[in-house]
Structures are given as structure tokens and as C-alpha cells.
């Protein structure tokens, strides 16, 4: 039937010879093209490998130089460096306990304040916000993340601290200070600067990160899954709590750890509002210090080699704590993953 068509016949006659030549030359071109592609591929691979190795070298270099700098302090004080809270440049006695304590307390406070808020923001943005409000709020959160930490520090010192000092802290002291067990947390003179203030400033700083990550993982939950929840008569809250959260647990933990890592290492803003006192106090209202605040605050004053070395040793401790947090997060994810696999 095709042959009977004169148009088809003409087409096949005229086009075939030229076609063959064309095919031949294009095969050569194709081979050349492939060779070029292979070379480019090899260069590409090589350069990415080099980048990865460079990263490892950098990391190794940082670790080695940190340990080298911290060696005098560690060898002099040994375990006492992390178990004692004396920090006395006059007598050249250094113990990091108060700084470790401050780091953990301010980060814990920050997480306590930031988690519910971030969760709320993420839920609002993915499930509840009317479309016209989604973008403005989303952009505002990204802007919040872009504010330099020194600005948070200034704001914390000149705006937040006086406000806390004049209203919240006296109220806490008066009303919560008498509570059994937890009362000690809220008792004390209202300085304005201290663990509580630092915790709040840190919380504000990490909310954008945690909520942005949570929003992104919530958005990966397939609509059909949410719809089957709704289809069974679940309310929005039930769908969020029993469908969205379980589905995005892994990603949420990632976001939380990202925030925690930032809170542990944040320096500038904390230095402004923590009070920079090497002391351990049960009261959240009292001043204290954190590892990074102590380093930033005292590096210029470190006159003796042992002082400098002790500050570097503080850096090592921060490194270890942050690493431990990340490792714990990994382990948790691994366990979650394995449990999921085991039950499959």
C-alpha cells in the first residue's frame, strides 16, 4: 500500500543516497562527540573529587591546629578543665564548666522557645494560611534569617533586656520563685541580661531556620496522603499530628538539629546579652557565659600563653559538643530508619 503511493516512492528514491552519506559523516561526528564527552566527564569527576578531598583536608587541618593550640591547657589542667568552674586569669586557673553549662542552658532554652513557635509557623504556612498571606509570611521568615547576628545582639541589649528587667523578670521572681522544685530557676535579682535573655534572643534567631526546614518537609507530604486523612473525617489538627508529622519526622529532626547546632555556636548576639560572668547559677535570670561568648569576649585580653590555650581548648569543647549533637541526630535517624525497615 505504501509503495503504491507515488509520493512515497519519490521520497524514498531521492532521499536514500544522500541519506547514507549523511549517516556516515554523522557517525564520525557522533564518535568525536562521545570522545569529547568522555573527557569532559573525566575532568568533571576529577574536579568534584578534588573539592571533596580539599574539604577533608581543611577539616583535618582545623582539628589538628585546634588540638595543637589547646594542648598546653589540656595537659596542664587535664580533666579539671571540664569539671571545675574556676576561670581566673589573675591566678592563671582555667576551668570550662561554667561556659559549658551556659552553652547548654541557653541552647536548651532556645529550643524550648523556638520549637513550638517554629512548628506553628510551619503548620500555618503549609496547611492553614490563605494563599495571599503565604508569601509575605514566608518572605518575612527568610528576612529574619538574613538579619546579621550583631543586630540581634544590639536589639537584645538595648530593647529586650530592659523590657525583661522591668516587667517579666520581677514578675517571675515574685510569682514563680516560690514554686517547689522549679522555683530556683526563676528566683533572683532581675539583671536583664543573663541565660533567659540569651535563650530568647537565640530562639528568635533559630526560629527562621527550623520553621523553614519544617515547612519544606511538610510540603513534601503528598496531597493524597493528607486527603486520605481528611477523607476519613480527620480535622486539620488530626491530619497534621497523625499524618504530616509522622511522615516528615526525619526531616523535622534534621531541622531541629540544624537549629540546635546554630544555637550552640552562636557568638555575637549571645556575647551582648549573656553578661559574660563565669559562674554557674540555678537561676535563669542570672548572668553567665557560653563557650563562644567567652572566646569572643576574652581573646584580645588573653595575655598569658596558658590563657590563650585555654580559650582554644574551649573551642575544642564546642567542637566536640556540636559534633556530638550531630552524631546523636544521625544515630536517631538511623534508628528510625532501621525500625521502619524492620517492620516492613
Amino acid at each position, binding site marked *: 500500500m505504501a509503495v503504491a503511493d507515488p509520493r512515497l516512492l519519490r521520497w524514498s528514491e531521492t532521499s536514500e543516497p544522500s541519506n547514507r552519506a549523511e549517516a556516515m559523516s554523522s557517525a564520525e561526528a557522533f564518535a568525536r562527540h562521545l570522545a569529547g564527552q568522555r573527557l569532559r566527564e573525566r575532568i568533571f569527576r576529577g574536579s568534584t573529587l578534588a573539592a571533596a578531598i580539599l574539604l577533608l583536608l581543611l577539616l583535618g587541618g582545623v582539628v589538628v591546629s585546634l588540638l595543637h593550640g589547646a594542648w598546653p591547657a589540656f595537659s596542664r589542667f587535664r580533666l579539671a578543665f571540664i569539671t571545675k568552674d574556676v576561670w581566673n586569669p589573675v591566678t592563671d586557673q582555667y576551668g570550662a564548666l561554667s561556659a559549658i553549662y551556659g552553652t547548654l542552658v541557653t541552647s536548651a532554652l532556645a529550643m524550648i522557645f523556638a520549637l513550638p513557635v517554629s512548628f506553628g509557623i510551619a503548620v500555618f504556612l503549609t496547611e492553614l494560611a*490563605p*494563599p495571599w498571606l503565604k508569601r509575605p509570611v514566608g518572605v518575612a521568615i527568610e528576612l529574619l534569617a538574613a538579619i546579621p547576628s550583631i543586630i540581634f545582639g544590639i536589639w537584645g541589649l538595648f530593647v529586650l533586656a530592659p523590657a525583661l528587667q522591668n516587667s517579666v523578670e520581677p514578675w517571675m521572681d515574685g510569682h514563680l520563685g516560690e514554686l517547689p522544685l522549679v522555683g530556683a530557676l526563676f528566683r533572683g535579682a532581675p539583671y536583664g541580661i543573663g541565660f533567659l535573655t540569651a535563650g530568647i534572643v537565640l530562639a528568635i534567631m533559630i526560629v527562621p531556620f527550623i520553621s523553614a526546614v519544617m515547612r519544606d518537609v511538610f510540603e513534601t507530604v*503528598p496531597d*493524597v*496522603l*493528607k*486527603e*486520605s*486523612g*481528611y*477523607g*476519613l*473525617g*480527620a*480535622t486539620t489538627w*488530626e491530619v497534621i499530628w*497523625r*499524618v504530616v508529622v*509522622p*511522615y516528615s519526622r526525619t526531616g523535622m529532626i534534621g531541622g531541629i538539629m540544624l537549629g540546635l547546632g546554630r544555637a550552640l555556636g552562636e557568638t555575637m548576639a549571645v556575647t551582648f546579652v549573656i553578661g559574660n560572668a563565669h559562674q554557674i547559677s540555678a537561676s535563669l535570670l542570672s548572668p553567665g557565659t557560653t563557650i563562644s561568648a567567652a572566646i569572643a569576649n576574652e581573646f584580645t585580653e588573653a595575655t598569658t600563653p596558658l590563657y590563650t590555650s585555654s580559650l582554644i581548648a574551649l573551642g575544642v569543647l564546642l567542637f566536640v559538643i556540636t559534633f556530638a549533637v550531630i552524631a546523636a541526630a544521625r544515630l536517631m535517624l538511623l534508628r528510625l530508619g532501621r525500625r*521502619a525497615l524492620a*517492620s*516492613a
Partner: protein
Amino acid sequence: MIHEPRRAESHGAGGADAGRRFGDGGLNLKPSGRQHVSESLEGGSPVGEVSVADAVFSCRDVSVFYGDKQALKSVTIDVARRQVLAAIGPSGCGKSTFLRCLNRMNDTIPGARVTGTITLDGRDIYSKRQDVAQLRARIGMVFQKPNPFPKSIYDNVAYGPRIHRLARTRADLDDIVFTSLQRAGLWDEVKDRLSSLAIGLSGGQQQRLCIARALAVQPEVILMDEPCSALDPIATAHVEDLIEQLRASYAIVIVTHSMQQAARVSQRTAYFYMGQLIEVGDTDRVFTNPQHRLTEDYITGRFG
């Protein structure tokens, strides 16, 4: 266009066997050349029997807008009790939109708007006083792709009863899970691994699990949106058997792209085209004697 020669051929053959050669899978078409009741698209009201005596849902002048785009145009139709209604029509014609009006699933889409009235057992489901979660609990929904929750088989089925507190004791819950899986024809296959993840089931098993999950809430109506499109023929047969059994106690609305399936499982068929309900009536009648030109074009495959 493939059908043109066959059409001519069957005419040429003439006589009694023309009809049989024309229709696939038991679809028996009237010889062409007859008068259609309607040929127009701008008719407004659909051809056929819109209302039924024993209606669960009554939709009157229902239109749906996604933003500015109108996806459903003034649809008026009843859904009968203890019957399967099949919604057919080309892709994008509004079948899913229609289905999702019935349990207000369109509410979850930002910018979606529904006008007209839909009543369930005589009560307006879009009234301000209607509790949407409660409404959806009365209406089971099964989706195109099997979409079990990332939980165990047991927890999937128990999800609805748990949020609605349908079971007072663990034994009650076990009982609901057992009955639902049994009705969905899945019990024997999963009874030994109720606590393993639902994702580990085959596609067909997952879909029956989703049906069990819907049944566990003890709904009055079941909506199915192309429930078999991701399934192989055996799993499809399973689900179709299940629909046949469920029909005894539920009203079922099923969206399907397979006209054979519509013919097999449904008692009434509604044909949608570009957001309009073109024709609705007894499945046998719609397939053997379509009254609207567009319906006939679609079911004979001359659509386009």
C-alpha cells in the same frame, strides 16, 4: 478515525450480526442513523433520568471554580442508595471534581469555590452548620493511587476508628480492623503481618487496604476515583468483586476511564464532558442506547 472502516464494514455485513461485531465486551450499540434526542452542548440540563426515587445525594446546579476557571458547570444529578453510579468522560472533564464535591474535599484546595446545593439525606452539606470532618466520616473515599499511611497495616485501618473514638476497648478496635479487612477481602493475606508496614504490600493489596481503611469508619457512601487504574487485571477483578458486594449496603460513586468497568460494576452511568453532565441513566440504557450525540461518540471510541 480507526473506527470508520469498521463501522462501514459492519454496515456492509448488514443483518443481525452488525450490532454484535460493533460492540466490544458486551456493549451493544444501536445501528447508526437513528435520531438523537440531543446533539447540542449548550443544552443546560442533561439528557436522561437525573433524579431517582431513593436519593442519598441530590446535587442541584452544582458549579465548581478553581480560581477563575470553571471546572464543573451547573451539574444536577442524584445518587441512589444501594447502587453504583459510574462517572465517565474524557480526561479533565470534571469527574474528580464532581466526586470531590460530594465530601467537600474541594474545600482543601485553596481558591476552590462550589456553588449550587448538594444534600446528603436531605441535609445541605455546604451549610454553615455542617461539620466537615463529621461529613467526611460518613463518606468513604478511595483514591486513584493506593495511598496507605506510612504506618502498619493495623494502624492504617485503625486510623479512622481512633480519631472518631469508634472503639472503646482494644478488643473493639481489633474487631473493627478484622471486619474491615475481611470485607475488603484482604484479611487472609495480611492476618499474619498486621504490624508490618503497609508500604510492603503489593499495589492491589494496598488498594484493598485503603478500601478497608475507608470501611472502618462505617461510612454510608463510598467515593472511588479511578480505584483500579494502578492495578493489574487480577487485582482489578478483586476490587470489582468487592464493589459488587459493597453495593448491598452502600451507595457507591466510581470514576473510571474504562467503559468496560463502568458497564460491569455500575447500575447508573453519568457522562461528563467539559465540565457538563451530558447524560445520565441506567448503565444498560446509556451504553446500548445513548441519547446524546456526545455520549455515543465517547462510548464508541469516536471521541475527539
